[in-house]
């Protein structure tokens, strides 16, 4: 099996900076990134919320690869520093020994490209897996054209393959404003920027620029529904909300658009950290569930470091790439020091210089904003709206712990249980909700519903969202075809020793 001194996952700003820093310290570094991803994944909204607004067919893979490289100036620098860069390579699994599993001879990752999968060992791991789009549902949000800011950003900058013509952006923080600005630069007409807040939340200069270009700014508004035909969005109905997030009757506005871009927030991609058993905690100022880390970006698991959006995302990071870059360099330094490539004193001195930038912006509470959006959408759209598009599970079904509708279950006892505070003592546990209702069990692997399920559970049960256990992560954290997951390198011994149910054969793992 391949073994690397330092693996860096994610070639964004933070991951590339980490790789360069460690390589310059003399570490042999391997940097993997899943881009360019396959169209089949984009259709599943993996790993971003692409909302079926990727050009079909996509440009051919070689051209996409060129564009991925061209969109990341730091990659050339990394290669010049001696970093081994592997693009088009996703990380679908992370495995290490624990109290109930001791068969591995060291921690390892599961990697895959378009053809095959393989395992790779590492001495140190830097996870710079970025963040994904925070999705929220409204009537019609299952139609093509509802997408997320990171998905739009990837299609615009990395792939040059966004097919939107007229876009409504939800969210007036820097994320939403920057997305709207980039869309305009790409020739997309931005019809409106919408926020539940009573004034634009982001950079004033960006707001002025957009308004100067004729973009309507709807504050104290939410989405009532998206309307379309043949599964494609044609317009979106906005409605004003009051201080209690209740829609104000008679204030509806219909805005023609083929795209609704959710730029309400980004959620750190902690799935690999979850698999590795890193301690995670809900931190409202860092965008949700994030790894516990010290100021040198070391996680609770020795040999695992984090940098960039995965370590915590806030709006201040949208405009200022130096935050992620500094965190990346901190990770590179910490990893290099722990591998003995540089002395502790030097690593500490250089970390001291980077820390002010890495933790520069003052993070804001994101939860209150998420909640306001969520409540307004619940109030305007009702409970009979799909939270989980993949499995067609509504808000009411989540809260009522309803069995999947395809069972058409009816009985005297049906519908008596549920998670509303007054319903009794049902445990408020997102994994349990998933297994009973199927919300989160679909092919997007819960990317589009995790936060909504947690918000619903918190709102309806009265529980603190930080106290509701994080829905667990399981490999593969990318949908992986059987023929790719298939271990082409499987030793013949595995077949010889494959047990017919129970018989002790530890040896075949390892």
């Amino acid at each position, binding site marked *: 099996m391949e073994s690397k001194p330092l693996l860096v996952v994610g070639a964004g700003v933070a991951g590339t900076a980490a790789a360069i820093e460690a390589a310059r310290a003399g570490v042999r570094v391997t940097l993997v990134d899943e881009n360019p991803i396959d169209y089949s994944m984009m259709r599943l909204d993996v790993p971003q919320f692409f909302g079926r607004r990727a050009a079909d067919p996509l440009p051919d893979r070689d051209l996409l690869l060129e564009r991925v490289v061209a969109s990341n100036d730091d990659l050339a620098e990394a290669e010049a520093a001696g970093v081994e860069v592997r693009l088009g390579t996703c990380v679908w*699994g992370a*495995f290490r*020994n*624990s*109290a*109930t*599993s*001791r*068969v*591995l*001879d*060291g921690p*390892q990752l*599961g990697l895959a490209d378009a053809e095959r*999968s393989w*395992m790779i060992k590492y001495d140190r791991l830097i996870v710079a897996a970025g963040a994904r789009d925070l999705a929220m549902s409204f009537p019609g949000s299952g139609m093509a054209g509802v997408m997320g800011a990171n998905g739009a950003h990837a299609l615009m900058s990395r792939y040059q393959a966004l097919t939107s013509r007229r876009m409504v952006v939800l969210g007036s923080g820097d994320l939403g404003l920057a997305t709207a600005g980039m869309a305009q630069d790409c020739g997309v007409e931005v019809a409106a920027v919408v926020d539940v807040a009573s004034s634009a939340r982001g950079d004033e200069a960006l707001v002025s620029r957009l308004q100067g270009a004729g973009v309507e700014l709807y504050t104290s508004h939410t989405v009532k529904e998206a309307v379309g035909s043949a599964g494609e969005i044609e317009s979106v109905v906005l409605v004003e909300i009051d201080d209690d997030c209740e829609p104000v009757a008679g204030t509806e506005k219909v805005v023609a658009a083929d795209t609704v871009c959710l730029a309400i927030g980004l959620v750190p991609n902690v799935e690999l950290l979850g698999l590795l058993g890193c301690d995670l905690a809900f931190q409202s100022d860092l965008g949700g569930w994030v790894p516990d880390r010290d100021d040198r970006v070391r996680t609770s698991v020795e040999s695992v470091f984090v940098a960039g959006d995965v370590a915590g995302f806030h709006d201040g990071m949208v405009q200022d790439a130096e935050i992620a870059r500094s965190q990346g360099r901190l990770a590179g330094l910490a990893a290099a020091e722990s591998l003995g490539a540089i002395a502790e004193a030097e690593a500490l001195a250089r970390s001291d210089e980077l820390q002010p930038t890495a933790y520069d912006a003052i993070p804001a509470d994101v939860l209150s904003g998420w909640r306001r959006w969520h409540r307004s959408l619940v109030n305007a759209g009702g409970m009979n709206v799909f939270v989980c598009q993949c*499995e067609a599970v509504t808000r009411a079904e989540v809260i009522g712990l309803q*069995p*999947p509708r*395809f*069972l058409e*279950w009816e009985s*005297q*006892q*049906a519908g*008596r*249980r549920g998670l509303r505070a007054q319903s009794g*003592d049902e*445990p408020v*546990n997102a*994994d*349990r909700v998933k*297994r*009973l209702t*199927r919300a989160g*069990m*679909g*092919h997007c*692997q819960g990317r589009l519903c995790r936060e909504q399920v947690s918000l619903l559970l918190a709102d309806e049960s009265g529980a603190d969202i930080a106290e509701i256990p994080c829905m667990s992560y*399981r*490999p*593969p954290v990318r*949908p*992986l*075809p*059987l023929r790719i*997951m*298939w*271990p082409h390198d*499987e030793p013949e011994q*595995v077949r010889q*020793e*494959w*047990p017919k*149910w*129970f018989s*002790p054969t*530890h040896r*075949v*793992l390892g």
Partner: protein
Amino acid sequence: MDSADVVVIGAGVSGLSSAYFLAKAGRDVVVVDKGIVGNEASGRNGGMVSERVDEPALIPLAVEATRTWETLADELGHPTEFVQQGRLQVAVTEEEMGALFAERDNALRHGLHAEMVDPGEIRDLIPGITERTLGGLFFAKGGHANTQLAVQAFAWAFQDLGGRLYQNTAVTGFQVSGDRVTSVETTAGPIAADMVVAAAGPQTGLMAGLVGVHIPVAPARVEILATAPLEPLFPLALVGNGLYGHQAVRGNLLFGGGAHEWTDVDLTTEPGKPNTPLIRSIARRLAELLPDLADVPVIRSWAGVVEQAPDYMPIIDILENPSNYVVVTASAHGFGISPATGKVVSDLVLYGETNIDIGGLGLGRFANVKPNWRHQRGWTPAPNRS
């Protein structure tokens, strides 16, 4: 002090089935669990239901269970997703073919219905299955159910009858007076009880240790994977190419198999359930078994900790001392036989005996098992290597 006629330890499928049938018989029952309903092995298995012809001592229980599954959801008032369209075991080697004939003969000897099918018939039953099958054994009574829905159905039906379910409540000890347990000590306080049913799965041995009794079980971790949902392909439970599994009603293929790993557990926390790279080898065997489906994505996997007695068979018995302590644990057979397990345990609590033959499942068979049996067998966790 809190009290009940019966305290059931363990909100897995065996404990909740027992609690349900006891509550149905009018007993005041409390179920305690350190975690939540069906969050361990009961919710993380393959959901297989069969008459267990390969395990003669289990046949009476399994036959009763299979019969009960047919009407269980209606009885409980909550869905189980039970599908009874048969179970097919296919052979891809001559050695497996020989085992199928032996199993067929065994089934006929016990009066169970099982028939050999040829490769052509197998392809009719499982469209797209590998051309490599040499033959199969079909059991009409087999099937599968949804593990989490079924265990929750028992829990809700139990609660619908007035049963009390204390979740996130760990057992920490027992008060014993003479030859009887008088109360169960928990993290929520003591509960006085006339009878105790310990349905503690992998913790069975540790729990019995609290009353000074040695029960040999070894915990082990097993793994399963799930694909994206597909159109309905086959409603049967399928065993072959080293795997067991089925297509869920929703359409996902759920298949497990391969090497397990011996592990240790403790009394008050849920064991971690990490998957390992073994899931790649499971994926390979599934793609070999159903080659037309090799492009289907795997979207999830799960692991669970089950327990095994030295002879791989369930244990259902009343201890001699303390004499009001019923032990029930199923050696990874628990889900399929659970409806019968509950009836049997209920009988033992109410009458001290049962009409269903559990003669091979008592503790007497371990009379010569030494305390260090796990070490002797090598059924111990691998050394900790970080």
